[in-house]
């Protein structure tokens, strides 16, 4: 008898079908990877187990944890199970902890709710649990607050809360999606160790095939609320019976077709020379200058016309600061940034000429657009940079052309942004960047928030556009596989400095700097 068995689970929310005929089981000590793209129902499966479904949800079928039928359990009974026998880890470590409570109290709380433990006993258990998640007492006393910890450390605290009472089943919903690759690798190792030590069942929900292929014993692949394929991790990718599995697998390691060195001129389009950017830290003394933090330290590089350059680094490495400086959003203290021989800033003002030559695509397809404007107005925003903005017909034509060049319809111009999916929104963001025909497009994590199959399409689109409009890309990302697939050259950035630079294939094939090597080693890999 399995630890958790879900049998023919159907879920409707406000009579809209969400899950259909979902059956799966997890044994003690087993790691089950549940993979799917957004809207596939993978999180809803987890919430069904936890009985944390939204209002208007109706379920049929059965979910049993050992002998307890969870679908029939009362809320009171579920409360005693959650945190005790069922643990859950969420995606976003930044919001999963209460900012005004110490980490010790938050871990101890779980203990005190479920066990008749005294305050000191609960603290004792909290201490032991934090040790188990590798937050040692000398550096992480119970009295620490969440804001004093990094994202990875917070995720460890969240895991500690979930495993404090040694639950039989742990559900982890995208536990590493918000983390850097090296941190992700550590958290995955930690989860694996905990599963082995406690003989716990782990349901690992993720959209990333590579993550689960290394971690999980068995894999379930979901699509539109149904399980399309299931099997042991070792053999599933070898066989791949369902076409969707193949699509997913291919999309994950997708390399867009890019023309080889067509017209790469030697003239640099963007040149960054000795750029430094300091931020003042909050004052600690009443008199004297506040201390400074150097976010970017004497960085130099160039991008040639038609080239695609990748900038890789983990959060806090200074890549966003550098991006903002290039885009003319913030002035740098030292050094020069030039585009086509013109400085971005002259006399503390941004040159309009320079702005006309570059545009940007941001990461979040949901936050990049003013929800109150129609697509035509959103896409046409860069016309503000033209001295003679196009009028009526010419404007309409330009908008239609931009939309069609990214694979949308001219008629989409009359819609509002909420009518589009994430992938379509990212296409609109690219259309907005293209409309004034810039030379340089800065892609700031532009595909990081997208599902793998959508990401593959957007990468193809970018490759195609660079060919058609001879665009130059500056591709900023923490995702090594994406950078590898679309760039000619790559820069690796750490603590405000560029530690390694070179042709993408050479850097990835034979990394010189220790940091580059650790990045590449930490990145989860798909089985060949």
């Amino acid at each position, binding site marked *: 008898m399995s630890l958790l068995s879900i049998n023919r689970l159907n879920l409707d929310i406000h009579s809209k079908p969400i899950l259909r005929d979902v059956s799966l089981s997890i044994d003690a000590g087993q790691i089950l990877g549940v993979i799917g793209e*957004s*809207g596939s129902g993978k999180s809803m499966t987890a919430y069904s187990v936890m009985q944390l479904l939204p*209002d208007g949800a109706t379920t049929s079928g059965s979910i049993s944890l050992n002998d307890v039928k969870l679908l029939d359990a009362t809320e009171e009974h579920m409360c005693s199970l959650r945190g005790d026998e069922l643990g859950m880890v969420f*995606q976003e470590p930044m919001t999963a902890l209460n900012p005004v409570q110490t980490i010790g109290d938050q871990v101890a709380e779980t203990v005190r709710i479920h066990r008749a433990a005294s305050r000191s006993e609960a603290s004792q258990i909290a201490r032991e649990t934090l040790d188990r998640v590798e937050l040692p007492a000398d550096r992480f006393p119970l009295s620490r607050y969440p804001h004093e910890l990094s994202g990875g450390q917070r995720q460890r605290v969240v895991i500690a809360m979930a495993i404090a009472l040694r639950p039989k089943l742990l559900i982890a919903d*995208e536990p590493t*999606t918000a983390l850097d690759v090296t941190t992700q690798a550590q958290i995955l190792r930690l989860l694996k160790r905990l599963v082995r030590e406690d003989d716990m069942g782990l349901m690992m929900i993720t*959209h990333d095939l590579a993550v689960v292929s290394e971690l999980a014993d068995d894999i379930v692949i979901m699509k539109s609320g149904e399980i399309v394929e299931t099997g042991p991790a070792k053999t599933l990718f070898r066989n791949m019976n369902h076409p969707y599995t193949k699509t997913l697998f291919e999309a994950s390691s997708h390399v867009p077709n890019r023309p080889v060195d067509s017209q790469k001129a030697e003239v640099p389009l963007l040149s960054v020379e000795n750029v430094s950017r300091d931020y003042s830290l909050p004052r600690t003394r009443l008199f004297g200058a506040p201390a400074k933090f150097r976010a970017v330290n004497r960085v130099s590089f160039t991008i040639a016309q038609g080239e695609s350059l990748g900038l890789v680094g983990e959060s806090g490495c200074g890549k966003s600061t550098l991006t903002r400086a290039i*885009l*003319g*959003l913030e002035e740098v203290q030292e050094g020069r940034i030039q585009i086509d021989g013109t400085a971005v800033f002259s006399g503390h003002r*941004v040159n*309009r000429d320079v*702005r006309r030559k*570059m*545009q*940007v695509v*941001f*990461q*979040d*397809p*949901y*936050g*990049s*657009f*003013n*929800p*109150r404007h129609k697509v035509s107005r*959103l896409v046409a*925003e*860069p016309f*503000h*940079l033209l001295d003679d903005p196009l009028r009526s017909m010419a404007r309409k034509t330009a908008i239609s052309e931009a939309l069609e060049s990214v694979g949308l319809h001219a008629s989409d111009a009359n819609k*509002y942004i*909420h009518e589009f999916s*994430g992938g379509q929104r990212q296409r609109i*963001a690219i259309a*907005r960047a293209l409309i004034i025909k810039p030379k340089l497009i800065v892609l700031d994590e532009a595909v990081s*928030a997208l*599902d793998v199959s959508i990401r593959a399409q957007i990468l193809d689109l970018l490759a195609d556009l660079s060919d058609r409009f001879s665009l130059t890309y500056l591709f900023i990302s923490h995702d090594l596989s994406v950078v590898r697939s679309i760039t000619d050259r790559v820069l690796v950035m750490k603590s405000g400095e560029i530690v390694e630079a070179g042709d993408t294939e050479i850097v990835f094939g034979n990394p010189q700097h220790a940091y580059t090597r650790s990045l590449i080693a930490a990145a989860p890999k798909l089985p060949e």
Partner: protein
Amino acid sequence: MPPLETTKPETSLVRQALQSRNLIIGFVLTMLFVGVALVSYIWTPFDVETLNIPNKLKTPTLTHWFGTDHFGRDIFSMIMVGARTSIAVALIAVGIGIVLGVPLGLAAAARRGSWLDEIIMRGNDLVFAFPALLIAIMITAVFGPSAVNAIIAIGIFNIPVFARLSRGAALSLWTRDYVLSARVVGKGAVRISAEHILPNIMNLLIVQGTIQFSLGILAEAGLSYVGLGAQPPIPSWGRMLADSQTLITLAPHMALFPGFAILLTVLGLNLMGDGLRDLFDPKLRNERR
């Protein structure tokens, strides 16, 4: 993975509004009050400026629905005309608050952390420290009592309310990617505030405006009660209450009806504000259900 967004098409907003009990009750009460004020321009049962002393302190009858006051004036007619005063004072005061407060708040948000932000926000704190009543007394001391001075006093009191609200909401919008992309195309702070920030804080302003409107009516009644608002012979709910004070045992209806008028109007506006907030903020709505 981005969270699934549950944006609903704008058209269903009307249907959602029809399902909200608070909103409907609030809207009906508010419309009743506005309607009464409008009708008073063309018709009232009796003239409110004609005294009819022999007819004084009549309890409600079929001719005088709400009775008469100590000068024999028809209370129902006075409440109708008083609604006019209340609306005018509160509406203009809220208008002053929005017209001056919102741009100040937007400017502070656009230049956050700068000296401009400091001056605006500390100035707000200063004004906020004085209650509307105190400001009214100061203004009256200088210019003498009148409805206009009441408007100015309540209006000044409204400025920091809207400045703070719009600064807070605008600050979070300034970090959005669409504001960043507007900056990348070289749009200035004024233009971004007008195109991207203001439309997105409009719903907050509407809700706050409704609530400030009800507070304005209360403040006007309060100022008139102490004699700092509209001057005789212009009828005002607050002064009707003040007049009834000494006669409360003799003619309780004189206090009852203006009191109810204030109560229902403020209740209606507050319910409408609540309902509007629920309507604009789906998260809150789900929690309440």
